[in-house]
């Protein structure tokens, strides 16, 4: 099963071979996890996104037509799932603003989390989190996932010119955010 192409796996699944889906999950779980993780900045939330993505994939695989490659299709579902998760989280944060502060205090007391999220890491995460959705998606797919503009264009349904502009503005904003933070904290 591992030597089959993505498309062959999809065709097998469509003919009733359940294990073809298992192979697709094994093949893409790590990539999908990191896409989600970079969007949501939290392991548990990313884990939830990964599971939801594959549940959705399972339901939609029967109708999959090879109009795009399997992995760009998977990435599209993952990006949408991660964006939805971020939006829901924003609503939760807005509603439970008091609880948020309690959670933040709790986190500060755990040494392993302090080690995990150093100051620099937190700054980078903040900078990316502040990006507009589109720029964030382009940045993650281009910089971290190292996809080509053509591939990203299929995933996000955006022209390559638009993607390049988004990538530039995203990278610039991250640099400016970090620069501003360093200057503010050194005063």
């Amino acid at each position, binding site marked *: 099963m591992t030597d089959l192409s993505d498309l062959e796996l999809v065709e097998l699944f469509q003919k009733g071979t359940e294990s073809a889906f298992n192979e697709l999950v094994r093949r893409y779980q790590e990539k999908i996890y990191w896409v989600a993780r970079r969007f949501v900045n939290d392991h548990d939330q990313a884990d939830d996104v990964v599971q939801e993505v594959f549940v959705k994939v399972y339901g939609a695989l029967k109708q999959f037509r090879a109009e795009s490659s399997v992995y760009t299709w998977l990435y599209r579902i993952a990006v949408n799932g991660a964006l939805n998760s971020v939006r829901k989280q924003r609503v939760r944060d807005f509603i439970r603003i008091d609880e948020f502060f309690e959670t933040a205090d709790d986190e500060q007391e755990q040494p392993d989390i302090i080690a*995990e999220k150093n100051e620099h890491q937190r700054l980078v995460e903040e900078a990316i989190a502040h990006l507009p959705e589109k720029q964030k998606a382009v940045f993650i797919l281009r910089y971290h996932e190292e996809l080509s503009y053509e591939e990203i264009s299929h995933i996000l349904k955006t022209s390559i010119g638009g993607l390049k502009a988004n990538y*530039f503005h995203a990278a610039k904003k991250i640099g400016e955010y970090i620069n501003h933070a360093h200057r503010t904290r050194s005063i």
Partner: protein
Amino acid sequence: MRTEHVQYDLMDYITDRLNAQERIHVEAHLQECSRCMKEYQVMLLTENALKQSQRSEPAPVYYTTILPRVKERLVARQKYAWNDGSRITDIILPLVVSAFLLLLLIKIPITNTNEYTSAQALHQAVHDLNDDEVVQAVEKAYAGSSVSPNLEVAAAGVSEHLQGDRFLKTALSKQIDNEEIADIDIEGIISDLDGEQVEQLLSGLSERNRL
């Protein structure tokens, strides 16, 4: 070449994702364009920050747990499929809406027919009867004699306070010519009456829930 084209390639230049020709072009441009050089410095800062940041990796065993848990979710979703929101929106909601629309379709013609019949009856009462006949109908209604409900409505409104008043009869007639009974504009009628008549009409009609 325009500056913005080089700007858009700067991050790819820094991360070594341009071909040789593109690299040469960017390097040449940076030497002569201070604006792009400034953007390049910001991009370098971004790249350095990203390089230094290291996210904690999940334990390798984590990836072996994904598939079983996805399967668990799938089983749970199938088991409680009827509790799924999509079932509500796909099946139950359209059924409820259809039933509601069906009820509306059944009810609307009946209401219209009633209103039309009432309007016709009132129209008859005012137009076709002479003053004496209207008064007679009113008296019969008050005496408990058999008068059609619609005629009773018309006659009672006319009779209680303004019996035999030709002015009101004309005003009412004009109104009925344009409106069905359910939509009678009392304001339209009373605009032709004096203050006392208006007071009498309004109090008389309101007692009969005509307003």
